[in-house]
């Protein structure tokens, strides 16, 4: 554990300063060093999308970045969206439309969808499917997830 680097990262608005090995993946840093286990880890080579977080506001695979690279940057994880008593409209829609079965992929889907819905508040089904192409779900067959995104877009439009 020589060659540690000290980094300061803002995660969900909170500043963290930690010593990390350069080879530590951002995904493992978030889970093991910060204890934010809402971000899941699936394939660890950029295929499944379950580790998706926002890096300076843009969706990225946290398994394809090193924690050292986040020094001075802003990371947003699923924990920022809402809690059990006060869910984000996107989380509400996932519940309502039965878009969650085992739930392993869900946080990745949500974090891919947050910037997508900001940019496309009224998406077509084709745009939704395109936006979801980088996230794998082995339970649902995707139809309910697509329904949930439509529902979330409708509900969020009413609220704003």
């Amino acid at each position, binding site marked *: 554990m020589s060659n540690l680097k000290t980094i300061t990262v803002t995660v969900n608005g909170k500043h963290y300063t930690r010593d990390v090995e350069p*080879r530590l993946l951002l995904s493992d840093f978030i889970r093991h060093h910060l204890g934010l286990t809402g971000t899941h880890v699936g394939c*660890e080579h950029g295929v499944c999308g379950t580790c*998706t977080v926002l890096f300076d506001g843009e969706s990225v*695979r946290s398994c*394809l970045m*090193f924690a050292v*690279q986040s020094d001075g940057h802003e990371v947003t994880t699923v924990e920022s969206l809402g809690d059990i008593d006060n869910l984000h409209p996107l989380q509400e829609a996932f519940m309502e439309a039965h878009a969650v079965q085992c739930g392993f992929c869900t946080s990745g889907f949500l974090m*891919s969808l947050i910037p*997508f819905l900001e940019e496309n508040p009224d998406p077509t089904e084709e745009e939704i499917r395109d936006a979801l192409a980088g996230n794998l779900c082995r339970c649902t067959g995707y139809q309910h997830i697509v329904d949930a995104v439509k529902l979330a877009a409708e509900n969020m439009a009413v609220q704003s």
Partner: protein
Amino acid sequence: MKPAAFDYYAPSTTEEALAYLDQFGYDAKPLAGGQSLIPTMNFRLAQPSVLVDLNPIVDLSYIRPHEDGGLLLGAMTRASQVERDPLVAERAPLVHETMPSIAHPQIRNRSTMGGTMAHADPAAELPAVAIALNAQFRIRGQAGDRWVSVDEFFLGMFMTVIEPSELLVEVRLPPMPPRSGWCFREIARRHGDYALVGVAAMVTLDGGNQCDQARLVFLSVEDRPVPARRAAEMLQGQTPTAEAIQAAAETAATEDIDPGSDIHASASYRRQLAKVLARQALTQAFARARGVA
């Protein structure tokens, strides 16, 4: 899956980065977007002992108009920036059309112009597009810059003319002549996967609606992107009728490429895909050159 240990340097200037590369030679790897390098490190297929992270070098991220009507793209420009840039859409519509086919939005938010060229994956889209556009590469070493034409840049699978002590810093796309048309097509099992075969087409018509120049480049068929030279020669000086396009597409698929078989597709299926994609791409490109598509 955890990468092997390495020393990490995050220089803020190209000069500093070049000094590290010079110091560590073959042991060092530049880290651009990391969307290919980091998965290979996670698998421990790559175990560089030094990473020189180029992400803090903000000077390498830009999209600028060139005075000749072309474009200059900094090596650290993200794919998502290229995808959304109106100047790219106007001056390099082939690049604009290709971007959504590259992996997924989350990957494009990190992936860089220079990284995809320097990585030289034969299944990558932008290297083939660079050949179709006759791009030039500015490669920087401690002794200075050199320009390399795209036809000399790719040496084979994951190999380019960039030396271990050098960095690709800029990609130059020449201006598109008037009466030009373009098209990018690929077939993948799922959108965002590596293509089984893809093709980039760039054509220019003369005043008499005959083909002045055609460039047709395949990806995922050999160990590097492959220009279909015989097919291009067949089209030159011809009126691009459906028959002429069909004949060129057949020549491209049978004579210009020599695809291999793997678990994803057999060689003969790749030739079939290449023929169909070439016909579709050329048809669309010529229609755009005539201004009817």
